[in-house]
């Protein structure tokens, strides 16, 4: 049954990605901004411009261009970046790992921080401590990721310069890697000094991405926990003599976590989207930072590849969340 669900979702994902491909291809050609216009010299003649368009394959009719592009995708070739002079697949393979490590770290911090605060808030319910937590959480919720990023820059890079501001790793240490998963590889190979350096570069962008998501988790999970704490099974456990912490962790949390998990999945897609601006601020070499340059330069093949990649990531996250929720709540498996 599970396999059938996965197959169904995969088929839907393909249809969705095909739709995304058509939309991004048309949009790029409709929105003003021609990559050749960006680079031609003022003295270029019409023949020079035509030659340059032909060089980048932009002279063919739109349908032909689309046909060439989709045929390439089927064969695993997403084209060549106009600005980077490299295959799009190779560029994306280089940059994606940095974003994945950053996003996963941010998710981990958001869940740990958000979950922890929600549990503490539940334990402190109906006390002044709960009001303090709610107040702080409202601030966390109201401030977007890029504002967090700038505040962290001012705090940890200017006022108290203890953290490196930009990049993924100290350029002097970025050697000897066989994959682009720098953090994972350095931990697995026991290069802890390098891993520490990478982590120190990750702290600020991670927090900037994680804090808004943590606030969402706090608000939803705390509310769910409070409602669960009023249920009969919790009352029964209380009568049995369970302590408050055990009641929350062992009885309420298991039943309250479903909606939070589903929403966290949705919010995680926003977090991935947030990497675009956060990576830019911290000069982090992931696909978000790459996307901005691609758009500025109207690098059509790269933008198309990035949009498809972002689409694929969002789809995979949603499938993953659906399956996880279904696994936790058996009655949802047939929904």
């Amino acid at each position, binding site marked *: 049954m599970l396999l059938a669900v996965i197959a169904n979702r995969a088929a839907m994902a393909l249809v969705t990605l095909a739709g995304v491909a058509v939309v991004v291809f048309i949009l790029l050609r409709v929105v003003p901004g021609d990559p050749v216009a960006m*680079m031609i010299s003022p003295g270029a003649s019409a023949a020079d411009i035509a030659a340059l368009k032909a060089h980048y394959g932009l002279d063919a009719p739109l349908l032909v261009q689309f046909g060439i592009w989709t045929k390439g995708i089927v064969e695993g070739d997403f084209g060549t970046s106009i600005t980077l002079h490299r295959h799009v697949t190779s560029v994306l393979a280089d940059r994606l790992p940095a974003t994945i490590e950053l996003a996963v770290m941010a998710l981990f911090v958001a869940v740990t921080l958000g979950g922890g605060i929600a549990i503490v808030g539940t334990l402190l319910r109906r006390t002044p401590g709960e009001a303090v937590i709610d107040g702080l959480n409202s601030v966390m919720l109201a401030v977007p990721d890029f504002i967090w990023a700038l505040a962290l820059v001012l705090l940890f890079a200017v006022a108290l310069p203890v953290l490196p*501001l*930009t*990049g*993924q790793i100290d350029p002097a240490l970025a050697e000897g890697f066989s994959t682009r998963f720098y953090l994972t590889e350095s931990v697995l190979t026991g290069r802890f000094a390098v891993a520490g350096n990478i982590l120190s570069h990750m702290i600020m962008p991670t927090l900037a991405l994680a804090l808004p998501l943590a606030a969402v988790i706090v608000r939803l999970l705390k509310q769910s926990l409070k409602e669960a704490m009023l249920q009969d099974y919790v009352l029964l456990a209380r009568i049995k003599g369970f302590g408050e912490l055990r009641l929350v962790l062992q009885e309420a949390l298991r039943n309250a976590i479903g909606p939070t998990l589903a929403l966290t999945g949705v919010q995680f897609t926003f977090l991935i989207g947030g990497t675009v601006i956060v990576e830019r*601020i911290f000069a982090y070499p992931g696909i978000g930072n790459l996307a901005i340059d691609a758009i500025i330069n109207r690098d059509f093949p790269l933008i198309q590849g990035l949009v498809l990649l972002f689409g694929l990531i969002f789809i995979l996250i949603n499938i993953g969340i659906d399956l996880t929720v279904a696994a936790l709540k058996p009655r949802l498996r047939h929904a």
Partner: protein
Amino acid sequence: MFHITRRQALAASGGLLATVLAPQRYAGAAAGGTLNIAYNVPLPSFDPQTGPSSVNPTIQAMYRSIFDQYVGQKPNLAFEPGLLTAWGWNDDKTKVWMDVRENVVWHDGTPFTPEDVVWSIEREGKQGGGNPVSFIWAGIGNFKIDGKRITGDVKQYDPVIFKWMAFLTGFVLPKAYFEKVGAEGFEKKPIGTGPYMVDAYEGNAYLRLKANPKYWGGKPPFETVVFKFVPDATSRVAEIESGSSDITLEVPYEEYDRLRVKAGLKGVCHPISDIAQIFITNGGVMDDKNVRLAMCHAVDKDAIVKRLLRGYGVPIATLEAPEYEAFDPSIKVAHDPKLAAELLAKSGFSKTKPVKFTIQTTRGYKPKDYEMIQAIVGMWRNVGIEANIETYDIAKHFELRMSHKLAPAAFYNWGNAIGDPTTSTGFAMFSKSPHSAWHSDDLDAKIGPLWGEKDEAKRIAGWKAVDRYIAEQGYILPLLQYAQPILYKSDLKVTPNGSGALQPATLVSKA
């Protein structure tokens, strides 16, 4: 089977934590012989001859660190020998000759030869080969090599061909190596003859360079140079303020003024070859000379420089900056709102019955661009011009300009690092240029003969006359020459470059 004990896990975790939380090492400038530059744009490609990067003026500093140009250029924009030690035309300018520098080696140790020069020019001149200015390079060909001298035919005379050799795409690449590794291979492991060799590169993060010990121009001042790609201005300010970088550029003028007086930091803000201007597109109300001249006379450029740009900038009356060859200080366009109102009145416009049009501008592309246009629109309003501001991004500007569809007025920044009038007034105002906005036969008739003028004095005098005519007709509204703010640690010495290229090999050293 991989096994880790609790004791080992605890020790590893403790070590990791200590490394993460250890205070960062922010020493003095260029500590350990490494110069860290917080640079404002990333380097997309290592090919300085083709693609969009090759004509992007902001990344030329990195190219000039790795590669050499045919002809060099001093910070005051004067030309000097590069990989060519001498060059010129024959008397009737039907042939060119170039003497190639001897005893130069590529970064892989192979000798640099005249064949490299010929191959580079021919690659650049190949139409459809990806060089955005191939028509420039295609103007010379049929090369012959005799010892260190190269001679060639002039297919189409261009008085600025040798100046282009110090400008965009004018770099020499290694023929044998490039043919061996191909374009993709060259991107992975580029080599040049320049003062620095590529040591490591992480797109969107940094470029690490090592000094070339065999550089023909002498050993560079720093053993290692790291260009950190920090496009966000706030982050660049934080980089220099925190000491993470030794030098940065293109920060907001307010931040420049705040930090240049801070202990341990210095600053320099020098005019560069970037001109802020408002294109005027012919048609509609812009065909009325009174309206155009009123637009020009109503703008108080001094006030814009002083109040908006904190004094950093030079008001200009033509498209020639003071450092350019055809600069003529006698051409003036006075700030005279009364005259502007009178001119408008002649065409039936007034404050109560204003002339209306749209002005397009970028927002955040250049310092205070949008604010500058807001101020100008305010000045226009005071004399009877009502302009509606429309913002666009630079890509849209290029496309609209190429298709002659810009709004009646459109703000733009025009760079011209070689300072020749053809690459400023010429390309911006000649109707056959795809990047001109004003198209009229009277102006074309004046500009046309200058393209092939072989008498240099006559050519420059001709361009000055064209600039005067443009100012009298109000065919464009030149605003100001930008100044480039550079902040650096006080134990460095920095020479500002008129082209704006912050070259670590020649312009930055230890004080």
